[in-house]
């Protein structure tokens, strides 16, 4: 079954918007929108970590939180509070961002990142990671690089990048591979896969995601520069 995208090329991301400094109370914050998926992230800290046994005397700790607002889903209202899904996404998000971040200057502390989804059309964990890495940079923390994330994959037998909800649930079958990377080195910090495909197809999807991440990188950098131009 050959799939044809209605409104964009197979290697094309959905339209993006990014803005830094969207939550004044926070040390750093950012909004990242890709297609109809909208994520905001806010950073608080470094601050003292309780209970104390969680503290690391060598370095600060990164702690991410992922939440979908109750009205942000495409079907029924999403029940508030953490779910197994949101906890897992928070975990992989933390692991995706950690390699870019250096918190050794702040031992025994925690840096909290709160990610909220206002509207969703698939790709929420990737959008959350993109917003969070901009928020961490906005907070002025030491970072090796920004982290960019997008999903590669297959819709039917066609390799694509940045799947939306309709594509993820394509009846001819779809493969979704969320990938995060630090574009400067090309190192991959998040990788998950749902679906069935060959090694060659995986490689093809990874190449598309890598190219997508480079596009996201430019949008993120422009948004960070825009904030400091204003000031």
């Amino acid at each position: 079954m050959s799939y044809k995208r209605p409104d964009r090329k197979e290697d094309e991301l959905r339209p993006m918007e990014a803005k830094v400094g969207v939550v004044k109370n926070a040390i750093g914050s950012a909004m990242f929108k890709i297609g109809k998926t909208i994520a905001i992230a806010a950073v608080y800290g470094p601050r003292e970590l309780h209970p104390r046994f969680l503290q690391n005397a060598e370095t600060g700790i990164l702690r991410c939180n992922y939440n979908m607002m109750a009205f942000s889903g495409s079907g029924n209202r999403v029940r508030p509070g953490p779910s197994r899904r949101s906890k897992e996404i928070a975990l992989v998000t933390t692991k995706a961002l950690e390699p870019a971040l250096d918190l050794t200057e702040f031992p025994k502390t925690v840096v909290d990142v709160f990610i909220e989804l206002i509207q969703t059309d698939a790709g929420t964990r990737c959008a959350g990671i993109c917003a969070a890495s901009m928020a961490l940079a906005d907070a002025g923390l030491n970072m090796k690089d920004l982290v960019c994330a997008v999903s590669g994959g297959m819709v039917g037998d066609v390799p694509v990048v940045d799947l939306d909800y309709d594509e993820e649930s394509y009846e001819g079958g779809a493969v979704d591979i969320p990938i995060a990377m630090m574009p400067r080195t090309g190192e991959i910090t998040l990788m998950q896969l749902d679906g069935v495909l060959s090694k060659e197809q995986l490689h093809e999807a990874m190449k598309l995601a890598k190219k997508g991440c480079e596009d996201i990188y430019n949008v993120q950098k422009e948004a960070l520069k825009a904030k400091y131009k204003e000031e």
Partner: protein
Amino acid sequence: MLSISKNYIQALAKKGLRADQRKMEEFRKPITVEYGISSKSAEGSARVKIGDTEVIAGVKTEVGKPYPDSLGDGTIMVNVELLPLSSPEYESGPPSIDAIELARVVDRGIRESHAIDFKKLCVKEGELVWTVMIDIYPINATGNLFDACALAALAALKDAKFPKLEGDVINYKEKTDTPIPLEFLPVSCTIHKIGGKFLVDPTRDEELASDARLTIAFTESGKICAMQKGGDSPFTEEEVLKIVDLAAKKTVELRQNL
């Protein structure tokens, strides 16, 4: 809060002054209302800003069996979550008492004013009724969440359209042109008493220094439709009547933003 800051705010208030140079009866500016901020997923949504305070609200609908004591009535539900994203004061976990009070005060303003006719939320008496669920989230919490949340809830309701109902199943992908049956907008205003003086739209520091507060919702014709007192100090009868006058005047202004 440090007692030195509290004393400072109280001393200023006694002279009719505020730390941010505003008049006692003056809201922060600008007040903005933006509709349809989550229009793909929510039935209705809105973002409200009062100065630096920002709140978003979204409406979802579901259908289900009515309550046994009101077989011909649909219902509403209001939920406020004080996101740790919005302030260093808030922590993750079960809803705090502040979040619960906020949600119940907003709920009361809409429910008790009969702004939504629950009869009109009935699909089939005794069998199927609509539940309208309003979820409110502060994005940046720097004071006066009471008024901001109430305004955001009304704006989201005003923006909302029912999804398509196929038998007793909702097709969320298709929205109808039918709005939520809002008879009018019950706007509310919260008045704080600090150092014996009254002020509106407190900053977070003013809230922490406040002796007492009274939230009042008004119908479009100026009738009172819900109230809630908070804070440690009591009010005299005269004070309550004075507050009603001030709140009535301010809700006329607030209403112009919707």
